[in-house]
């Protein structure tokens, strides 16, 4: 069941990161233009290696549960950038018909079935999804992304506890980006590493450099295999840094500029480009960037062209049916 890992896979790891960056750079750009994008915009700038690495380790039947910082996970999974962009704008042709906006992007056709922006909720949803996989004896796992800030929520504890107790196939991926909003890690967490939690549940816990896409990928492959084989859940902490503000209207007034500059040097895309160039696998990243830019421009054009849903369509999609039928 070990996945192949060759040139094609390495190229995919890089090109997914490049696509995510291009997509989100456009978001960042438009977020500066008054009235262009509704609500707050949240990017994973600098964290692309986690999305790209973990998601590439998934098999088709694996399920993803993501959170408020979801673009990377969605794009790496192959969700249509057009539908994504339209949804972010609240348009009719959006992934969720304008009902989600940027915060709850959901695509069951890619096994992204439920997305919550309640911090700490995604691990509980994932535990439930993994229960279903386990109940049906599927050879599949559920991969959930959450932040170092989320780890403070009681829900995350309950999810890990129950998943460990019942040996459910959940990979808990903690994107430790050093921040929960404007609070640095040591202001919201008494221990420096979230992975310290794993032994409290008798669960496997691993920590990787979250800006090293191959390291993330290989570790995720290993842990997911164990999950699918019935060995119970695992916790994977990916250490990284939130390069942008919490959202695009956050000017990071509380961030140490020197610290930020240090992390710029660890940009996962630059690092991996260099590695693949040294290996002779690519000449430059420019071709990938161009392709990505084209996709993003098309997505934006599509989103712009899409109309808003009708006001009264606000009434749709609350219930599957309002009255149960007689049996």
């Amino acid at each position, binding site marked *: 069941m070990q996945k192949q890992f060759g040139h094609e896979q390495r190229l995919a790891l890089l090109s997914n990161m490049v696509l995510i960056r291009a997509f989100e750079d456009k978001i960042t750009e438009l977020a500066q233009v008054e009235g262009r994008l509704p609500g707050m915009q949240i990017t994973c700038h600098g964290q692309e290696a986690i999305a790209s690495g973990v998601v590439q380790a998934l098999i088709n039947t694996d399920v993803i549960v993501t959170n408020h910082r979801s673009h990377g996970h969605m794009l790496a999974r192959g969700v249509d950038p057009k539908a994504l962009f339209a949804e972010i704008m609240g348009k009719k042709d959006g992934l969720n018909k304008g009902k989600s906006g940027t915060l709850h992007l959901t695509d069951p056709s890619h096994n992204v079935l439920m997305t919550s922006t309640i911090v700490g*909720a995604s691990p*509980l949803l994932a535990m439930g999804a993994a229960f279903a996989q386990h109940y049906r004896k599927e050879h599949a796992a559920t991969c959930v992304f959450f932040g170092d800030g989320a780890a403070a929520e009681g829900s995350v504890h309950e*999810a890990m506890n129950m998943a460990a107790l*019942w040996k459910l196939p959940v990979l808990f991926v903690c994107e430790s980006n050093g921040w929960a909003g404007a609070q640095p890690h040591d202001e919201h967490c008494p221990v420096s590493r979230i992975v310290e939690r794993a032994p409290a549940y008798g669960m496997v816990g691993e920590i990787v450099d979250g800006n090293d896409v191959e390291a993330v990928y290989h570790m995720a492959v290993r842990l997911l295999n164990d999950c699918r084989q019935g060995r119970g859940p695992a916790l994977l902490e990916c250490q990284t840094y939130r390069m942008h503000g919490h959202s695009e209207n956050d000017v990071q007034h509380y961030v140490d500029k020197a610290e930020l500059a240090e992390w710029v040097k660890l940009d996962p895309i630059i690092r991996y480009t260099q590695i693949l160039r040294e290996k002779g696998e690519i000449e430059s990243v420019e071709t990938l960037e161009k392709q990505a830019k084209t996709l993003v421009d098309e997505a934006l054009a599509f989103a712009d062209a899409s109309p808003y849903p009708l006001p009264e369509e606000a009434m749709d999609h609350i219930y*599957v049916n*309002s009255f149960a039928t007689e049996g």
Partner: protein
Amino acid sequence: MNVQSTGQAIGSALALAMEMDKSVFLAGEGIGTSIIVNPHSPTRGLLERFGPDRVRDTPVSEAAIAGLAVGASCMGLKPVVEIMYFPFITLALDMIVNHAAKLRYLSGGLSSFPLTIRTKSGIFAAGCQHSHHLESWLTHIPGLKVVYPSNPADAKGLMLSSIFDPDPVIVIEEMPLYWTIHGETPDGDVRVPLGQANIVHHGSDVTLATYGRAVHVALKAATVLADKGISLEVIDLRSLVPLDTATILSSVRKTGRFVSLHDATRFCGFGAELVALVSESCFPELKTSPRRIAAPDIPVPFTQPQEEFYKPSVEVVVQTIHELIA
């Protein structure tokens, strides 16, 4: 048809649903092995019958119990989970309100959550952290359905409808009814549709709408009032969402008088909705002011005399209706 207690009738609905559909499973604290061996407990014997994969005793984690239901239902299972006592549901409300009720909407209809949450309600001597009627909270949330049976046949039929309903349904079980109320219960998969009230006592002078234990209080009051020549129509709502407004309103249009009755506290209780609905919709037909009968605005007291003080009684119903007619 056979006579069952309300608890047994719920149990037979659970067993039948599990037999009919492998995607139905149960989870909750002590639903498999319980500290109390009571023949009227709905989940009694189900662990032995269906095994621990389908009847899951959980850790003491209400949020996780609800999260399990949300996550598993989104994958196509039909979870039936229990929150032991109604006030403990507060620990699960993020999952119920922000997730079970909203994630389908947020997905633009792509996902659905065919889950059922059972919780035990009722006034009993354990104090207000065990006893608290919160139904008007749940009925205020678009995306949830809320069911509140008063007798064995309804409890069974509504439970079956709830489990196989494609949306999240909260079933509120009045625990004291488990053993005090027995009745004829149809065999097999006989469902009571959500959203159909039942006129359990026909009358022409006053309409009273209620649910759960209070139905039995209302029926006793109807008998007392009949002796005095007052004809009370008692509507057992059975499901609060969807609410059968047609039955309520047509009864009020006939009687011209309306009373709501429940064990929950008065201020912002479900009776407020009922009185508001009737006042808005039937004002011209109303002969006198509508009235709410409910518990006073205090926590459920522990000690016996204060528990009696708290509970809406037959006497209060009779007296209130006398006042309306006078």
